[in-house]
């Protein structure tokens, strides 16, 4: 058995005959941070969703923490797991969505304690204590009684991270956690993620933030059209890409980032006047 926390072998997924993942192989070690890069529509979101079974895969296998997801192997024959068993497998995986998906009818603290109390069976007092610690960790202890609508996008995403951490996941999945944010709010979310990586969390992060990928990722994986095109250390892939598709993508991202930075600078300058 390998020691990898996530092991995906030849994963395929199609939507109504349209093959979106065409045989993905990926291992993620304990405490490793992997950044998934790739153009829009390349299947990054779909792959993350397959790992925590929000989508069922059509072929291949995914193991998380040594356990086959979605199916049980009994004497060489695969048996579909029950919904209850799948829910149990999801509990060890935290997911952070592009659009936050906080529960709008619950306060920040209620969002965080919802799963520990109603799924994990912890007492309310215990969960509240832990929830406040987590909100403090993402810098929001003073916002615990606010509803999501009363928080900025960056604050909402940090609450979403705290909510995912509340179930003590072994693995965290981030699907473009900063791309729905105003540019000036991106930093606060990336800071939280950086700290999480330093504390040893295993993370798979879909992102277009090259600075983050370069500084934080142990490995960068470039996907295009449902396949892994190349992977390696961030400096190798980002600064010295081998494949034409990677080069094209990276130069386009670089342009966009520069445009964004210029726009942000212009806005900040305008505010100073």
């Amino acid at each position, binding site marked *: 058995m390998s020691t990898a926390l996530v092991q995906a072998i030849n994963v395929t997924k199609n939507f109504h005959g349209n093959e979106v993942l065409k045989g993905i192989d990926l291992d993620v070690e304990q405490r490793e941070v992997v950044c998934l890069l790739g153009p829009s529509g390349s299947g990054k979101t779909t792959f993350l969703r397959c790992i*925590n079974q*929000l989508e069922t895969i059509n072929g291949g296998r995914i193991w998380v923490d040594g356990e086959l997801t979605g199916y049980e192997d009994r004497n060489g024959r695969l048996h579909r797991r029950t*919904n*209850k068993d799948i*829910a*149990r497998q*999801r*509990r060890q*995986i*935290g*997911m952070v*969505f592009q*659009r936050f*998906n*906080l*529960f*709008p*009818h*619950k*306060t920040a603290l209620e969002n965080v304690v*919802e*799963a520990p*109390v*109603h*799924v*994990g*069976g*912890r*007492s*309310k*007092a215990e*969960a509240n204590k832990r929830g406040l610690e987590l909100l403090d960790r993402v810098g929001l202890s003073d916002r615990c009684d*606010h*509803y*999501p*609508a*009363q928080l900025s996008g960056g604050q909402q995403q940090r609450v979403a991270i705290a*909510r*995912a951490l509340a*179930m003590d996941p072994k693995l965290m999945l981030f699907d473009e956690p900063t791309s729905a944010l105003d540019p000036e709010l991106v930093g606060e979310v990336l800071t939280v993620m950086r700290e999480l990586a330093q504390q040893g969390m295993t993370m798979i992060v879909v992102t277009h933030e090259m600075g983050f990928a370069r500084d934080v990722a142990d490995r960068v994986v470039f996907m295009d059209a449902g396949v892994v095109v190349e992977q390696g250390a961030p400096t190798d892939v980002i600064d010295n890409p081998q494949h034409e598709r990677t080069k094209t993508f990276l130069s386009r991202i670089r342009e966009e980032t520069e445009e964004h930075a210029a726009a942000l600078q212009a806005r900040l300058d305008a505010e100073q006047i």
Partner: protein
Amino acid sequence: MTESGSSAATAADERPGAIDAVPVRHLGRWVAVAFIALGIAMLVQFMLTNKAFNWSFVWKAMIQTPVINGLIGGTLLGTAGSMVIGVVLGVIVAVMRLSDNPVLAWTAWAYTWFFRAIPRLVLLTIMGALGVLYPAGMRIAIPFDRQIQDLLGMHGTWTFATLDANQVFTGILGGIIGLGLSEAAYMAEIARAGILSVDPGQNEAAAALGMSDGLAMRRIVLPQAMRVIVPPTGNETIAMVKDTSLLIGIPVSNELFFQLSSIGSRTYQTFPVLVAAVIWYLLICSVLMVIQSRLERYFGRGFGTRAPGPRDQAFLAKMLSFRGGGGGGGM
């Protein structure tokens, strides 16, 4: 025309201050107000001077013991009971209708189809007549017990209880069941619209946290759907208050309108008792409207910018313990 306007030259020295302008005159509005005031005055004068109203009789009729009993034991109890059945069963039917299981979805569809087609007066009349189907009483037993016993040559009784069908289906209980079954068909459509109005990302976030479908529905989706469900449910409740006057189809006579009508026919004061009924219905609906607006505010929390205050929480505690009690596990 020109005396009050300041010139561009002075505007440069002196920055404009608070606005003190002459408002637009709404002449049409004042004319309308005058007409309406006149209409109201005429109506009040008519109602006070026309002898047929007989106001002193109206007040007396409203508080007769059989009327009050009919109001509480028929109209209010019937409304509350049938709405409880209607909402609970309606949500269940809606969840079934949205299920991946085609048998459940089809059953839910058929339920709605059937009960929406039957007029309530007809349904209540049928409820009252159901007793003829069970002349020897209704047995609560193992299904097909007699056939199984015949087939296997076994003896003994597999009946747990025998109920008198006339007792179950006539009287207010039959009325509540009949109106509740009918209401569930409408509530199912309302609840389905509410559930579908919730962002699918909510369900995914719940699933990603390890919640089961049922728990996600109960804790995450339904509370948000309530924002869409409550306003039409208020309308349904108010409509139900009025439909309790159909209880006579069962027949149940302990009901507001029947009791007032019978006073009217006994005393030949037919018009005043109708006025008394109108006043009672207006009072009940006004109270319901207040409750509805409170519920809307409670379930709208977190939407819009207003932070819910402690009053909402206190109201919640009084009205329904929706948040469940203490901690405790459960999956």
